[in-house]
C-alpha cells in the first residue's frame, strides 16, 4: 500500500454514496422541470413558413440588388440603332455608346435640315468668324 493512503482518515463510504445518489436524482428531476416539452418543439420548427418566406425574400432582394449594381438596366434593342438627332448645341450621329457630334455653340439662329436618306444638317452664322456654316452628320 502507498504511504499517502495510510494518511486518509476513516471515510464513511456508504453514507457518501447515498448522498451522491440523492443529488443525482435531484438534478434529473430539476432537468425534467426546465426541459421544453416535445409538443412545443413541434410548434416551432427550424424552417417555419414565415422564416422561409423571409429568407427567400432576402435572397431575392440580394439578387435584384446585385443585378442592378453589376449590370446596366436592360435596354430595348432599338436603343443601339444608329441614328442622327439634334442635341442642345449641335447635331449628332449616335450608335450605342459611341457618338460623333458637330457643335454650334454660341450660334443664335440655327436652321436644321433633314435628309430622308439619313442625314441631319445645321446651318448658322458662326459668331466668331461671321461665316455662314453648314454642318452635316450621317447615319452610319
Amino acid at each position: 500500500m502507498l504511504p499517502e493512503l495510510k494518511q486518509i482518515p476513516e471515510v464513511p463510504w456508504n453514507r457518501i454514496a447515498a448522498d451522491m445518489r440523492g443529488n443525482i436524482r435531484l438534478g434529473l428531476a430539476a432537468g425534467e422541470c426546465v426541459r421544453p416539452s416535445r409538443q412545443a418543439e413541434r410548434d416551432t420548427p427550424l424552417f417555419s413558413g414565415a422564416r422561409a418566406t423571409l429568407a427567400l425574400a432576402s435572397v431575392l432582394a440580394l439578387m435584384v440588388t446585385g443585378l442592378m449594381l453589376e449590370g446596366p438596366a436592360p435596354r430595348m434593342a432599338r436603343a443601339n440603332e444608329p441614328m442622327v438627332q439634334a442635341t442642345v448645341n449641335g447635331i449628332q450621329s449616335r450608335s450605342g455608346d459611341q457618338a460623333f457630334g458637330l457643335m454650334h455653340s454660341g450660334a443664335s439662329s440655327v436652321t436644321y435640315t433633314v435628309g430622308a436618306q439619313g442625314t441631319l444638317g445645321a446651318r448658322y452664322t458662326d459668331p466668331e468668324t461671321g461665316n455662314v456654316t453648314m454642318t452635316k452628320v450621317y447615319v452610319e
Partner: protein
Amino acid sequence: MWSNVKTLTAAIVLLGAAGLQAQDVAIPAGAVNINLPDNSPLALKSFTMADSRASARGAALALDLHMSATLRNNGANRIHGVTLRVVAQEVTLGGKGSVTYPSLNVGPGETFQVRIDMQLMRPSQVTGAPLVQVDLDGVLFQDLSFFGPDRLNSRRMMTACEMEAQRDRAHFKRVLAQAGRAGLQREMLESMARQSESSQLAVSVKRSGRAVTSAATGSEHDAEFAFLKFPDSPVEPLRGLARISGNEARAPRIEVRNRSNRPVKYVEMGWIVSDPSGKQYMAGSLPSADSDVILPPGQSTRLLQETTLNFSAKGQPVNVQKMVGFVNQVEFADGKIWVPTRQDNALLVGVLPASAEEQRLTDIYRKRGIDALAAELGKF
C-alpha cells in the same frame, strides 16, 4: 504634315485621360490630321486646338475638340464655297460629318478663318492613329468650277447654294436699285420677321423600321402626299406616300417625271408635314439615290428611302396629319442645277427657311446696318 511623334503623344495623353477618372487633359494638335492635297487651291496658314479636352466618363472617353484654322486661297479664282470632310477614325469606329462654308467671297491670296467644334464619345481604347481626320472635299469657285474629290457630293450642294445666293443677291440688288436703302431696309425687316416666326421640328432619323420609343399610338397606315407644283420646275411630282404612325413617318416614296427636254441625274423633294391643328413644318427633304441614274426627258422614276423620321417640337411629339411635297432641287446630267424661284418659295412663306445667303445678308444688316449691307451687295 503631322509627325508620328505627335500622334503617339496624343495617344499617350488620351490613354492617360482614360485612366484618370473625372479628370480631363488637353488634346494636343497631333490628334487631328488635316489633309490638303498638294495641288489644292487652299493652303493651311495656321491651326490651333485651344481648349480641346479629353475626359474619362466611366468606361468611355469624351473628347471635346475646338479646331480653328486659317486657310489661304492659293489659286487664281475667287472661292465661293469650301467643304471639309471630318472623319473620326473611319475604319475602326465610324463617325463622319461635313462642314461647309457657302457664300464665301475669297480672292486670290486672301485668307479666311474656319472653325470646327466637335464632340466625340467613344470607348477608351486608343490606337496610334489620329483621332480625327479632316480632308478637303471640295472648293467651289465664282465661275462654278470645282476642285476636290467630292466624296460627299459637295459640288452639287455648294452649287445649289450658289444658285440660291445669286438669286437672292439679284433680288436684293433690284430692291436697292428700285426702292433705295429704305426699301432694302423694309425687305430686311420682313425677312428677319419671317426667319424668327418659322417653326422648326426636332427630327431624328434612323435607317430601320418603327422606333420603340415613338409616341406613336395608332396603327401604321399609308398616307399620301399632296404636291405643290412650281410652273417652271423641270421635274413634276406624280404621286407619293409614306407609312405614318403618330409622330413617325417611314419609308417615304415619291414618283416624279422629267418634263424638261434635258436628262436629269438628281432630284430632291422638299417635305412639309402638318400637325392636327394645321400648323405646317418643314420636315426634311427626300433625295434620289446617290447612284448616277440618268432620268431621260419624259421618263419617270421613284424616289424612296428606307428610313424612319421621328418628329417633335418643343419636347412634344408632333403627330403627322398631312404631308405636302415640292420639288426643291434638280441637277441635270451636265451638272447644271435648278432651284425654285423666290416667287415659288413665296408660296411656302413661314415654312421654308431662308437661304444661306439671305441668312448671311440679314445678319450683316442686323450687326452692321443698311450701309454695310448695300456695300456688301456691291461686291458681287
